[in-house]
């Protein structure tokens, strides 16, 4: 799909795969990946909508400064760009 982020394969071997559930849909991720990378690789570039304006947001600073990539994991708001994936993680991009 046009514009879809893509995992690179040159010179790298990924370890164990894990399953993360995003808004009820399972996606595959790899141990060591950040949640942001896993979400992007699954084709999701919009991680949330602001309240109340409803503007879409995704990865912006990528280093944990801007808090734009907030998603809800097990009830807590976390920064996807600095949070590693865990097998069985339940992620919501719609709770605010």
């Amino acid at each position, binding site marked *: 799909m*046009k*514009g*879809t*982020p*893509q*995992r*690179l*394969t040159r*010179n*790298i*071997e*990924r*370890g*164990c795969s894990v399953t993360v559930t995003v808004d009820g849909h399972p996606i595959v991720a*790899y*141990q*060591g*990946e*950040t949640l*942001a*990378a896993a979400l*992007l*690789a699954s084709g999701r*570039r*919009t*991680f949330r909508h*602001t309240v109340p*304006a409803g*503007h*879409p*947001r*995704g*990865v*912006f*600073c*990528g*280093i*944990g*400064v*801007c*808090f*734009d990539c*907030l998603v809800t994991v097990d009830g*807590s*708001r976390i920064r996807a*760009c*600095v949070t*590693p994936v865990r097998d069985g993680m339940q992620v919501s991009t719609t709770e605010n």
Partner: protein
Amino acid sequence: MREAEVVIVGGGPAGLTAALESAAAGADVVLIDEYLTLGGQYYKQVPDGFTLKSAKAEGAEFGEGTEILEHLRASKVETLLGTLVWDILDERTLAVYRGDTTERIRARHLILAPGAQEVPVAFPGWTLPGVLMGGAAQALMVSQRLLPGRRVVLAGAGPLQLKVASQFVEAGAEVVDVLEASSKPPMSMENALRAFGHWGKMREGLEYWLKLKKAGAPYHPHQVPVRALGNGELEAVVVAEVDADWRVIPGTERTLEADTLCLSYGFLPSTQLPRLAGCRIVFEAESGGWVTQHDANQETSVAGVYVAGEVGGIGGADVAEEEGRVAAIAALRALGKVPADGLRKQEEKSRARLAEARKFAGLTRDMMRLKPALFDLMTDDTIVCRCEDISVQAVRAALADGEPTLRGVKIRTRAGMGCCQGRMCGHLIARLIAQQTGASLDRIDLDTPRPPVKPIPLSALAAGVDL
């Protein structure tokens, strides 16, 4: 409460050399980093769980980082990763958050090396998913091994974006255009002459340049993105030519189809922690704006508190490493770990390298110096505070309505009250204040940082045993 002779905050180039130097002299050292991997933004590593097929294939910079981190693992430095310093009490006692709880760590000598963040530059559409900063692109490509988009426009000021652009090319993206706001492209004859003698850096720059040429990537000096367009996500970027003062030249707009816009407009020192420690902050336009004042030993206005790296002025990794060493040597002498004139040779070498590195840093900083007209790209509807969705119009109304300060705007609009605590909007609002009042940036005070410097769960505060 635990204590250590030397506590270092930040595991990038500055913090790493400070930690190694301190541990080598027998000091007990705690190195704290908010992230889960050391190296900072410069020595990015692949995460645990990823394996490189060949370390050599990664290039010199990656190799240097790996080597330093191996030294660190072999040393006696105690490293606390995933650990946020969220407050500094009575100058050298740190409140830290890790593993869902908080604790205090007392430093006899404290070296702050928190680095910098990228300068946010706002224009219509800059909040769309697909618009990201150079640091994000690098974290994704170099560390996470993920290409964030396929058709990429890069924009900014200074040579760093050449590096990011060549990383995009290497990762297989189509670089649609590279826009340099400055009228002095990084490869100009003038800059080449000023970089004379800095062969390593010149070669590095040239390699990026050639890689882009080979890929057929266009490069345009004095152009900037003026609008990001897209229905929900980035689809196109409108770019325009600017004059020598970076004012948009009417009638020069063109539209580029792209799914990714990568912005690299330079760096702002992360002064939140030194400010909490009570260190004096001064405005140095040539060093990135508000920086932590320090003496030749890197000691701040607070005795026993040192800074190293970008937090004391933007200078790059080479400067940061030597400043880390100089700070550590000063702390070791004060602790009596080495005689008052000990480590003289290392110090002399370090100071000589520092002087050289600072010369080169001066050159890149000049190229990254942003002209005020860049902030005229903000229109009434442009979002300034990304956390709270506050527009330029709302900020301007607040400025007209009361005290023209960051604090005043925050109280009246909530801009700066969100999760990022003004890290994104603060300097944009300062620019709007400058536009509206004519005040120069050095007259516009930063908002006072409040603990916790980044949000932490209330449950962690409640669980903190010794707070």
